[in-house]
């Protein structure tokens, strides 16, 4: 029963990375974050420090704010109308919602995998090197090397090496999702965000993506929003349970799944509601 004495919020992350500016915090730390869309209180006072170099799954019923929270991490709400955000969100100790924070370098630190893979309207290789290109990497050899390296990392190289110049939209949807991951990795992020990244894929493709996440988690901080509890059980190191815009419980996967503290969490993971 020792586990029961653990605090509801996970202890500070196991690895603290000191970056060049001497940041002592984890990659992502959320402080009193509130978000309103058209006056509706969508995220309510969220506080969490996402542990580095591990997989954190955000679970919860539909409409609980999981995706909204994920999108605040790289300021994807910027272009939405009538969205108000208060509180602080630190990425590498930088408050990204501070007034004068420049957004592109923050987004560069994160790769985003959307629900449906969204290949850009260009060739396979151009998709992968899109990020490096916009950040100023030049030279055909260099870009080719990046593409090869990243496509290898997601296990796509062997499948596409003979048709790098053909349109990315010709790939199967599972391949496109891996391509999107490679594209995200190519900007050398520290963080990977996945918004139900496997929900549009067939079982085999989602298994491939899951395995990819597991194989790269020692290098990246991965945050996944997922609808499937089973997926969270399979791959999560830490689990955050959200309900009605509130963070109800956040801890290690073992703790949340096997010894949930909150009644709502218990009900949700036992299938009481969804």
């Amino acid at each position, binding site marked *: 029963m020792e586990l029961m004495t653990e605090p509801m919020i996970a202890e500070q992350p196991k690895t603290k990375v000191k970056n060049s500016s001497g940041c002592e915090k984890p990659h992502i730390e959320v402080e009193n974050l509130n978000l309103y869309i058209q006056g509706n209180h969508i995220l309510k006072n969220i506080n969490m420090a996402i542990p580095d170099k591990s997989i954190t799954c955000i679970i919860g019923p539909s409409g609980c704010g999981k995706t909204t929270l994920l999108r605040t991490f790289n300021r994807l709400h910027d272009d939405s109308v009538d969205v108000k955000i208060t509180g602080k969100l630190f990425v590498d100790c930088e408050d990204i919602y501070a007034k004068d924070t420049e957004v592109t370098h923050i987004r560069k630190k994160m790769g985003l995998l959307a629900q449906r893979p969204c290949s850009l309207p260009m060739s396979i290789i151009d998709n992968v090197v899109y*990020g490096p290109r916009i950040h100023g990497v030049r030279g055909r050899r260099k870009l080719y090397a990046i593409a090869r390296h990243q496509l290898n990392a997601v296990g796509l190289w062997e499948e596409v090496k003979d048709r790098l110049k053909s*349109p990315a939209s010709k790939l199967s949807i599972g391949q496109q999702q891996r391509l999107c991951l490679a594209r995200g990795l190519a900007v050398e992020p520290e963080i990977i965000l996945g918004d139900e990244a496997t929900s549009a894929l067939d079982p085999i493709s989602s298994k491939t993506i899951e395995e990819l996440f597991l194989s790269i988690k020692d290098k990246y901080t991965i945050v996944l929003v997922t609808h499937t509890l089973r997926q969270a059980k399979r791959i999560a190191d830490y689990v955050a349970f959200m309900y009605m815009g509130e963070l109800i419980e956040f801890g290690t996967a073992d703790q949340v799944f096997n010894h949930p503290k909150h009644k709502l969490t218990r009900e949700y993971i036992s299938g009481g509601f969804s």
Partner: protein
Amino acid sequence: MLRGRLLKDKIARHYMLTATVVSIFVLFLIGGGLFYKSLPILQEKSLWTLLTTSNWRPFKGDFGFASYILSTLSVTGIAILIALPLSLLTSIYIIEYASPTILRYFSAVVDLLSGIPPVIYGVWGTLTIVPFISENLAPHFVEFSTGYSVLAGGIVLAIMIIPLIISILIEVFSAVPKEMREASMSLGATKWQTVKKVVIRKSFPGIVAATVLAISRAFGETIAVLMVCGNFTDLPKSIFDACYPLPALIANNYGEMMSVPKYESALMFAAFLLFFIIVIFNIISRLVLIQIDKRYQL
């Protein structure tokens, strides 16, 4: 019961088929009719002479269409050169940067603009563009210009087709999925990089289609152009010279001087030329679009 429904289905299908065939057939009917009417002049003169000479003396039986064709092409060319960049920038701003409120009001204004009758654009051009060219612009380049010119026609035409292009482009740009923009932005691209490399690229076939539609419209625009381009039959040597596009030629002369031999036939040939240019232009652009689609699979 079933019998009745099936019968209705059958009738409906045949009815719609007939309607479709008729509407397509009209195209051939117009083309064929114009061609038939212009046969007399084609039998008298070689096609080459008609297309490459610019002498127009109906009483002597000289019919050269070169200056009309050149006028039509140059006025349209100038119009599209002015209109396309302006419309592109405007619609990108409206869709990517402006707030939805602006989009709402702006769309209404654009629709209003495209509803203004051409003759009003013509009057406005005569009152403002023509004197501006003659007094302020032309003196820097040529010795004398009345202002009634290729350029005036081009500018007025540009202003007329801008609303058309913008309203199509707004549709085209809004059709680019939000996720695609987010994919680009989440890699750290700026808005402008996203627009340039993703939105415009994705919309390229749509931009081509909008341009084609605008050009087709510009080819045929008659009254506004007629009012500002001078209607003078000679090969224009600069954009400050007067010109005489095909639609203006037909509109100004059809119904008059019909006693002059071959005159009607010559005007019919002018109409056929215009028809032919537009049809060929549309076919070519269709082929280009298919190629683009094949190449990029956007």
